[in-house]
């Protein structure tokens, strides 16, 4: 399995992660060995398996639509890094 540094940089961008050149180098090598191992899954004959078919009668689970108290506002916001009034403050996204 050939993995290039560019592949790793691209995946990092999708995952919203930043790495140093050194880390990219290391991850490229690790990816190659791990994905090489993952290819063992190609050895199996899975053509006839339908992953979407459920023969055992499973159904979608719904819960009743009820209003429940979600807890103190102060308690719920206690983990936010910065607040303005009852709003969580975030960086400007419109110029």
């Amino acid at each position, binding site marked *: 399995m050939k993995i290039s540094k560019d592949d790793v940089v691209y995946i990092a961008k999708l995952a919203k992660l930043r790495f140093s050149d050194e880390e990219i180098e290391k991850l490229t090598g690790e990816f190659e*060995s791990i994905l090489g191992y993952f290819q063992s*899954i190609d050895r*199996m004959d899975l053509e006839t398996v339908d992953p979407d078919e459920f023969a055992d009668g499973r159904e979608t689970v719904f*819960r009743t639509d009820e209003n429940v108290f979600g807890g103190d506002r102060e308690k719920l916001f206690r983990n*936010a890094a910065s607040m303005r009034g009852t709003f969580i403050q975030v*960086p400007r996204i419109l110029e």
Partner: protein
Amino acid sequence: MSGGFTRIPGKDCGFMSVCEISAGVAGGKYSASEITEMYIEKIKSMDDGIGAFLTVCEESAVAQAKALDEKIRSGKKPGRLAGVPVAVKDNICTDGIRTTCASRMLENFIPPYNATVVEKLLSEDAVIVGKTNMDEFAMGSSTENSAFRITKNPRDTTRVPGGSSGGSAAAVAAGMVPAALGSDTGGSIRQPAAFCGIVGLKPTYGLVSRYGLIAFGSSLDQIGPMTKTVEDCARMLEAIQGRDDRDSTSYMGEYQQDYAGRLGRDIRGMRIAVLKEFFTDGLDSEIASSVNESVRRLEGLGAAVDEISIPAAGDGLAAYYIISSAEASSNLARYDGIRYGYRPKEFADVDELMEKSRSEGFGAEVKRRIMLGTYALSSGYYDAYYKRAQKYRKLLRSQMAGVFEKYDLILGPASPVLPFKIGERMGDPLQMYLADVYTIIVNLAGLPAISVPCGISRDGLPIGLQLIGPHFGEAVILQAAYALEQELKLEL
């Protein structure tokens, strides 16, 4: 068996069982306060040398115990776990008590609510004494991926306790608590239980609510008990299981109520399958001979044991790491530095805020899994990896179901290796992943399984045996594990 462990610090303080404590507190033999204070003292005097805890909640535990004593004095009937000190893995939310997932990302996170399992423990009058160390976001097999501290194996402090629930396993093994909760996505309860010489049960997917468990791989994660004895494990399971509307994957059928009451029943005629795929080249010879000895003992007790093959069972590791990493990459997308979690001091715009939060807040293994998962789900690779892994999972489930038409249990080792040295496997992620080879198929198939001590190596290290049951077969698993425990009478 000879040997026994001489290196357990605090062994002479004595080990009390869940049953002993709850009966004693309910019957007025001990007060919950004296039990709680005794265990808090034990944690304070021992944990510097072990590193099992990330938070010790002395104040709330003492207050809780006092309230329970008051309740008992006023004549009210106490719960089933009256006064039992319990440690909770730090990925299970505790209202008002810091819950970090052993990550910088959640270093200061204080949940505004309790996980369902914590509510259940509290309603049965257990006392929460602390939060235990783990691999960051439960990703790892040695607890070395914690952002905060290394946990040492109480059986040999130069070795790892296993992972990811290594803090919970070490706390129980050292006698700092009689019981703990862990979580198991690919073996994270069973492998550390085996490494530390205790009992650990991964329940059937859906038996125990996941509400309030910080998600890693949602289709695989389950919370379960970790204890010294099989009976304690049964008692803990009775307390934490049950239907929960807040978890849409919660089981909607009937729940067996009295696991402990079934222990001690004869296992004569029980049909046990020994899985050939578990006895491969990578298996340590001492573990193999200890497991084989247990098979002979179970046969002696009247079980009918056959060797069988599940062709798919030997090839699960790739599918497991594809599915669990894919689910992790999606679950961990919520950590963006906006609403909660780590946020860098400086950032130019919202993209930089997110990238810096995630890159600085997550450790190396978590980032590696997010990258693997993102890759497996990315356009062009989805069919080759994720879809194939799902197909494999389907095939495995049907092959396992076929075995349970003829057998009550599947037996094998819990881990291919004995507890390894701290630092020994950290350089090679693939080597570390291979430590999970016997446990991951259970999660992929949603089955229940226990790890129960079955022997001691020449160097005094514990060996764990794994018993896998059909869906909701916890009672049979516990019954067989109890029979083996009573037969072996290991000095652990």
